[in-house]
């Protein structure tokens, strides 16, 4: 217990003091954090810490105090990734105060965490959250007496409805006025700190907490009776997923179109007139390269917002954990749980937010495995390409079957990938998942979450996306004056032809796939540049004339399975924090795309030859 003996590297008096938020999952810890810090929170930079930690500066006693939201943990000695992160954090960065959030109705088991903290000599304040829920269960807590026995101040709060904050604030402020060195643990402390014997907890709670002898059948039990029904549970789940998918489809995609028309309005009415005096090549670079990148970033904003509003509602209401219960029998065989399924479905709207959403899965192996699957989900952008190609090369009205087969292929490849790699990315964590009672998400909570995700996307990904768009512009516009196959991109397309010919993709289409690296939305537009044609009908006719339908289908397969877009790659990198994994994912999708197209194209040629 180095904190009391003064052997800690006590921070200089000028250093900002630090408060760490600690608590089990589902205790409303992040809600409290959001309430206290408002929209000022940001993802901090903590060397050696592998997950994102939110932090914010809060004024207390006229002093700037740093608040850090640590991931939810069950046990200070736990084995899960989050528990290791917290252990690592407490050993790397000194803290002045631990604010421990406890779900009041589960105080009988959650009290272990502050006891472990106390044994380590870390100063702390306990916040008993969801006091209203505990009262409904008939649980009575004598907070004053409990606080005395523990020697730790306790406050009752309702993080969700913002009650009890003044008290909590005053208590935190009061505890911080005590001048003591900041606490830094070392590995020995953690090893030595004992497990809390159940008898100690029993003794502590004997006169301070009164639990009812049994509880009434509550609303959660009634809802679960239907929603987790052995027979109807799954159909209800699938209906819900369909509804979710429809919302992303019917609201999210038009919102993307809205952003596109906004950015093209700015381009047409502001940028183009302004750039009139510039040389054509410079103007083209600024508008189609740089501004194109900005527009790509912008088009994702409303989609990410909507996605995380839905995600927050699913998560905060308690249904996401229940989906894991419902789908576990099927997904466990793939080394995953039901939450990966939900994300995969949302990936059919757009891969990017789905990848960001994998953070709800706390096992790194399960998260990486899901991130490997999601890019195979046939997103809306790819759909645009397929609709165009189908119109060009399948004029006989079988388009629906073609499209449906592509959806099936998307699912099959995603599941196959999981099956193939579940041995490598092995999820070692035991499956014991808490099913919290159903709770109404508050609009404020939901909005803050969605807004936070948009901010993160902008700060993390925008640079790379704009840079990528600029690079592609160079590839497709240089050398000066060249068009179509004469550009560097076109030459690369021709250079690749020994590889692309066996899968039936000509250099023109290869070039469009290089464009498609930015975003699939660009592919169709790129045909105009590549073929040097202006009207859609002319391009349709040209593609229909030069591409057979098996070549067209092979192109669709390749387009479906190779990298969805630059934004997806950047997001994978930002989420996995590993170039190796990102390159592996990229290589895997290119490999699978080529192989699938090759198998299809060559067998189709064989069948035709033998007919």
């Amino acid at each position, binding site marked *: 217990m180095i904190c009391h003996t003064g052997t800690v590297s006590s921070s200089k008096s000028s250093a900002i003091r630090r408060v760490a938020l600690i608590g*089990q999952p589902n205790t409303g810890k992040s809600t409290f954090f959001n309430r206290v810090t408002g929209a000022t929170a940001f993802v901090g930079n903590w060397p050696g810490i592998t997950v994102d930690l939110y932090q914010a500066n809060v004024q207390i006693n006229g002093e700037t105090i740093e608040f850090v939201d640590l991931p939810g943990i*069950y*046990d200070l*000695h*736990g*084995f*899960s990734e989050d528990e290791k992160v917290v252990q690592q954090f407490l050993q790397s960065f000194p803290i002045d105060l631990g604010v421990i959030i406890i779900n009041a*109705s*589960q105080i*009988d*088991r959650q009290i*272990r965490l502050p006891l472990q903290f106390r044994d380590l000599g870390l100063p702390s304040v306990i916040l008993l959250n969801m006091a209203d829920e505990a009262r409904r*269960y008939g*649980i009575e807590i004598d907070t004053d007496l409990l606080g005395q026995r523990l020697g730790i101040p306790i406050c009752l709060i309702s993080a969700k409805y913002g009650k009890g904050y003044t008290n909590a604030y005053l208590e935190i402020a009061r505890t911080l006025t005590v001048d003591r060195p900041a606490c830094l643990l070392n590995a020995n402390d953690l090893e030595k700190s004992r*497990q809390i014997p*159940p008898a100690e907890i029993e003794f502590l709670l004997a006169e301070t907490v009164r*639990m*009812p002898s*049994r*509880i009434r059948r509550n609303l959660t*039990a009634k809802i*679960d009776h239907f929603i*987790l029904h*052995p*027979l109807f*549970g*799954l159909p209800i789940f699938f209906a819900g997923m369909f509804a979710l998918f429809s919302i992303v489809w019917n609201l999210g995609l038009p919102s993307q179109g809205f952003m596109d028309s906004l950015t093209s309005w700015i381009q047409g009415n502001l940028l183009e007139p302004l750039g009139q005096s510039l040389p054509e090549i410079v103007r083209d670079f600024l508008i189609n390269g740089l501004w194109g990148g900005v527009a790509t970033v912008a088009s994702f904003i409303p989609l990410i917002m909507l996605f995380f509003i839905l995600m927050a509602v699913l998560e905060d209401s308690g249904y996401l*954990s*229940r989906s*894991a*219960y*419902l789908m*576990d*029998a*099927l997904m*466990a065989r793939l080394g995953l749980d039901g939450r990966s399924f939900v994300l995969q479905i949302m990936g059919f709207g757009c891969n990017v937010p789905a990848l960001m959403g994998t953070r709800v899965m706390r096992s790194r192996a399960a998260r990486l495995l899901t991130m490997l699957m999601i890019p195979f989900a046939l997103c809306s952008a790819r759909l645009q390409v397929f609709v165009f190609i189908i119109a060009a090369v399948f004029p006989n009205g079988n388009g629906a079957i073609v499209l449906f087969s592509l959806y099936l292929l998307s699912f099959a490849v995603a599941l196959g990938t999981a099956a193939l790699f579940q041995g490598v990315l092995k999820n*070692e*964590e*035991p*499956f*014991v*998942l*808490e*099913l*919290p*009672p159903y709770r109404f998400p508050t609009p404020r909570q939901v909005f803050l979450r969605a807004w936070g995700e948009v901010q993160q996307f902008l700060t993390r990904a925008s640079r790379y996306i704009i840079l990528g768009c600029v690079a592609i512009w160079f590839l497709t516009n240089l050398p000066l004056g060249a068009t179509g196959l004469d550009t560097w991109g076109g030459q690369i397309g021709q250079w690749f032809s020994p590889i692309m010919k066996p899968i039936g993709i000509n250099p023109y289409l290869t070039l469009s796939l290089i464009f498609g690296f930015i975003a699939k939305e660009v592919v169709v537009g790129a045909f105009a540049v590549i073929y040097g044609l202006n009207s859609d009908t002319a391009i349709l006719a040209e593609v229909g004339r030069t591409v057979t339908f098996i070549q067209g289908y092979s192109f669709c397969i390749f387009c479906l399975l190779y990298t969805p877009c630059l934004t997806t790659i950047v997001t994978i990198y930002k989420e996995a924090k590993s170039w190796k994994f990102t390159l592996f994912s990229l290589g895997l999708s290119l490999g699978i795309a080529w192989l699938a197209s090759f198998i299809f194209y060559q067998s189709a040629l064989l069948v035709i030859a033998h007919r």
Partner: protein
Amino acid sequence: MTLAELNTGQMAIVSEIRVGRHGQGLSNRLEAMGMITNKLVTVLRKAGLGGPLHVRIGLTTEVAIRRAEAKMVGIQLLDVAE
């Protein structure tokens, strides 16, 4: 008898947590979730196709636990049915 063998609606108390392939990790996690000796457990429902169990621990904690993990929890039956 283990938690995996408990019928839906039956109540039991935990008698031991066995150390399985997850070692101390699982028992730590279960303990943090309130699954300790002498604690009341009830199986609320079982998911189809060999899926997980929906278990209430004590009065106010509910968890989904896979059958393999439930086998690690030794229990003693209580005679009262809910």
